């Protein structure tokens, strides 16, 4: 029995699958918390690709870019959850369908 060595293609396929699952979550789930978690899935799949290409090209720029992506994801999560708390105070819900108007 012989298994193919793990190449960049394996990571790209996994990244694509992860991106698809996250995209489906963003488009379909009605709970804002789950939508934010799906966004994190997308960012993780992008990071997988960056690190895989950094390895293939033997270039550290991809890994540095992944660190930046993680920083942006942390800021995005903080602001997103802040918006969620504000929405919850206003409407007592985390359902996206019940937040159609942007009134203060």
């Amino acid at each position, binding site marked *: 029995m012989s298994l193919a060595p793990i190449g960049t293609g394996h990571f790209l396929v996994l990244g694509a699958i992860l991106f698809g699952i996250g995209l489906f979550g963003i488009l379909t789930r009605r709970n804002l918390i789950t939508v934010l978690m799906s966004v994190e899935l997308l960012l993780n799949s992008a990071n997988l690709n960056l690190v895989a290409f950094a390895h293939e090209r033997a270039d550290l720029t991809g890994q540095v870019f*992944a660190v930046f992506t993680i920083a942006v994801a942390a800021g995005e999560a903080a602001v997103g959850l802040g918006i969620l708390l504000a929405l919850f105070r206003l409407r007592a819900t985390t359902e996206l369908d019940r937040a159609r108007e942007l009134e203060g």
Partner: protein
Amino acid sequence: MELLIAHGATILFYLFAAVVVAGAVGVVALRNPMYGALCLLATFLGVAALFLLRHAEFVGVVQIFVYGGGVMVLFLFVIMLVNLHRLREVRMLASTAPLAAVVAVLLVGMLLWAVVALPGGGAAAGAAGTAALREVAGEELGNSEAVAWVLFRDHLVAFEVASLFLLVAMIGAVVLGRKR
């Protein structure tokens, strides 16, 4: 046992890839966000392990600290702050779920097509030289030092912009989260 040693990296890849995909499916499919957050934690840790398999030790550890620590605690705190009773009565998915499934499948198909169309069909072993990921000016140090050199020598402006961005995000989160 010989098989395990000869194909250790391959087996680990498929193991952690399974963890990552299962966690992602759990996030999207589970009704309770608390269970979803725990599945998300499994995905984060699996991705960190995959980073280690690609010789990105620094990014892998940052992934565990920032995602597995910071972001996960943030999510769990907010889930516990927000009262999520009456969850079972509401519909979980939007009515456009079939259309969204088609869009997601189409996008994944396009991405897989692009991977196959890569030079070498994406099957390149990608071992162009892992030593280059630990090297600083021809001297072999560690991955963290090499990343630090690239980060602070070539991308210093981006680093400063990122710190400014984090400051703005922090202020924004405080403003949004305060009581009116």
